[in-house]
């Protein structure tokens, strides 16, 4: 974990392992599976908060790994752009939930 966070692992390894795992977390485990079986607002909020924490962890890891990458410049650039999109999405979701809590209430 510390190696990833400090950007010591290779860019390809960091990007694919972490980004794929966060996408699986958001779209498969959290949104589809767990949400169906655990009917708790507390769980829903905790899981989203964990998603934001994970996306920041991935942002830091991939960003540092991209800075250390020696090779074609397109790959670090693309990986940084895709990471920014993930983090903006998770923050947008967070802001939306905070500003419009009634929408959360409607879920349950």
């Amino acid at each position, binding site marked *: 974990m510390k190696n990833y966070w400090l950007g010591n692992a290779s860019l390809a390894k960091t990007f694919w392992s972490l980004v794929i795992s966060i996408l699986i977390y958001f779209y498969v485990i959290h949104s589809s599976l767990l949400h169906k079986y655990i009917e708790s607002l507390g769980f829903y909020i905790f899981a989203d908060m964990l998603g934001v924490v994970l996306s920041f962890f991935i942002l830091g890891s991939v960003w540092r790994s991209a800075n250390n990458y020696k090779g074609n410049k397109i790959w670090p650039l693309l990986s940084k752009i895709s990471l920014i999109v993930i983090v903006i999405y998770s923050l947008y979701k967070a802001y939306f939930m905070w500003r419009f809590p009634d929408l*959360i209430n409607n879920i349950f």
Partner: protein
Amino acid sequence: MTDKIFLLLSAMLPTIALLLFFMYSDKFVEPKKNVLSTFILGIFIIAPLQVFHYTTVMILGEPIDYNPFFRAFFKAAFLEELFKFCVLYFFCTKFTAFNEPMDGIVYGIAASLGFAFWENLEYIYIYDEFDTKDALITVWGRAFTAVPSHAFDGVIMGFFIGKHYFRKNKSNINLVLALLVPVILHGFYDWVLMEESINSNFMFLFMAIEFGLVIYLYRSLKTDQLQKKTESEEKLYK
């Protein structure tokens, strides 16, 4: 019951995540025992705050009726930051592991997040008495506003304390800034929330200022640290 368990976890998660992020971003990671004891001392900042509160009630016979400005700048910002400052200056600087300016930031964060952790628990206790949903939404909002803001204040305070402790001249200006800058930023942040005539969205402006300052201060120390690491590695291989 499930809601209450996740409510508690949600209150703990942002503080612990931020602490781990900053702790492991340090090239020379601080001993866990030191960071944990600072975090716990940060939680106990609530004790002198309560002593102050009850002493004023005993003397005046009733709680002080602060106006929003005074409540934000004195009761919240000044007192909280003052006790965080005491933790850093009288406790953390005595660690043998406190051996570079970056350590000020790590311990500053630990003390601040300890306090933010306790504040979060206090909020969920207050709100949960009425409605668990309200408590959850409050914790959710605080995870992105109050908790990072406390962490940013800790970084700023720790930066100046580190600068003071490893200073080359005898000036105490960094010590004054260590208290003054976080008090001003924390005060403004709270004031726009407490003052009804001001749009509360202005708090994001103060968060942005804090964030910008944190990035700048953190990067300047990080560059020094990387340089120091390279120099020590070069010496090792010579």
